[in-house]
């Protein structure tokens, strides 16, 4: 499936999520399913929560106990393959990388997309972080319906 459409299967996605209990706090979800020569996630993590090991081609593994959900890896991953997910009392909260214009504004409601690009929910823009060290990869915090915790992946501007 991933090899043919670029869309990972449900099983592949679920395997990257820690337990529901663990997701009460924000945790990185690393959707890197392939051995490629790359390691900025490991080297950027301040908490040594991500390890690749000696072979730079190995896929990263996350120690979710050490992960604080800070989101540094999200904008350092050149493949935009990392998000941060958290289960909140009323919503699922994500930090996602975003590299398009217009830039979302706090409080706006955007379209929430699944991994095939389908509009599946409303995405409330909670926070937009842009710093020089992010090098133009914006970190957007969004709230979506809790049911979409495994399906939501990115946002689309509603006024195109």
């Amino acid at each position: 499936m991933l090899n043919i459409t670029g869309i990972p299967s449900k099983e592949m996605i679920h395997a990257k999520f820690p337990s529901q209990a663990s997701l009460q706090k924000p945790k990185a979800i690393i959707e890197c399913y392939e051995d490629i020569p790359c390691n900025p996630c490991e080297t950027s993590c301040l908490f040594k929560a991500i390890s690749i090991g000696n072979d730079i081609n190995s896929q990263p593994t996350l120690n979710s106990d050490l992960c604080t959900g800070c989101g540094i890896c999200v904008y350092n991953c050149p493949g935009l393959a990392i998000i941060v997910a958290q289960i909140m009392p009323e919503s699922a909260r994500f930090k996602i990388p975003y590299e398009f214009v217009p830039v979302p504004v706090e409080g706006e409601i955007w379209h929430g997309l699944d991994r095939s690009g389908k509009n599946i929910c409303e995405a409330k823009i909670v926070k937009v972080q842009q710093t020089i060290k992010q090098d133009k990869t914006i970190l957007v915090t969004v709230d979506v319906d809790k049911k979409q915790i495994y399906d939501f992946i990115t946002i689309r501007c509603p006024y195109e």
Partner: protein
Amino acid sequence: MIEKDLIIIGGGPAGLKASKSALEAGAKVLIIERNPELGGQLIKQTHKFFGSEKQYAKTRGFNIAYILISELAPFKERLEIELDTTVVGLYKDYVVTTLKNEIYQKYHAKAIIVATGASEKVLAFENNDLPGIYGAGAVQTLMNLYGVLPGKEVVMIGSGNIGLIVSYQLMQAGVKVKAIIEAAPTIGGYKVHASKISRLGVPILTSTTIKKAYGTDQLEKVEIISLDDNWQEIAGSNKIIDADTLCVSVGLSPMHQLLSMAEIKMVCINELGGMVPSISAIHETSMKNVFVCGDVVGIEEASSAMVEGALTGLIAAERIGYTHPEFNELKNDYSIQLDALRSGPFGKKSRIGLDRLKVSEHA
């Protein structure tokens, strides 16, 4: 005839890194670059690069070009750069001829590094000469270097990393990508790049090829068709997609012409992209003191080209009497970096190709 120590043909990632190594070693270097600026393909790469910190991972390509160029600044008294200058001849007696502003120039060098890179492959189909049909590299140059959009609605042919990355960049520029089509049964490039496209709703159609382009004054429609397991067209599976732009990204060929001109021993190795020079373990061709690095000796990522360049610059400088103070340590480190970059599944083609290249040397 102008006498030179070391001439480096091509100022892309391989040539720039080769220059830095040779300059650090103490050599005098002339870089000859066809384009108006240094950096090669890096200057139009707006995405963050893969690899490790040593290859500037997570830095955007055009910023890597700035870094590589600025690394040469401390050596400017020993560095000459000829821009807008095309090398038109390489001869057995170490003569390099150039053309700049219609002025023909002759150089003679003690050593030469050929880092000419690669050119895009073309694809044969009906009406492939209609305006609106581009190579992916041309689209990237127009868009990211000159700020000109190629069109409004694009179909991309090829799902290798270039096809995927250029599709993403087209979307960033506000162009609608209608589909990416791929003749092979699976996606060619990194799946993380593919997923970036899929999640924005752009279909990647594998086992699909282009049948024909339509249009009167320019491209208007593209006809695609599905392929079976034997790469044969499936009758009746034709579909028409409206598009004003078609982008062809079906692979690269090493730019070997100068090497062939000097009658350097060449071999055809599919895994490396076609005709490549036969080389020794130190990147020397069959012509003594002529070295090669980067895509001209096998199509790979820019990260490998940079490391190969750094390695080759060290060796070429040593050959003409300038041994880098850390020659052995650096040579060893670059070899380890190259092995690491090539050790995964995506490095398999390079590994097979380079093994075949080694065999060809002894034959």
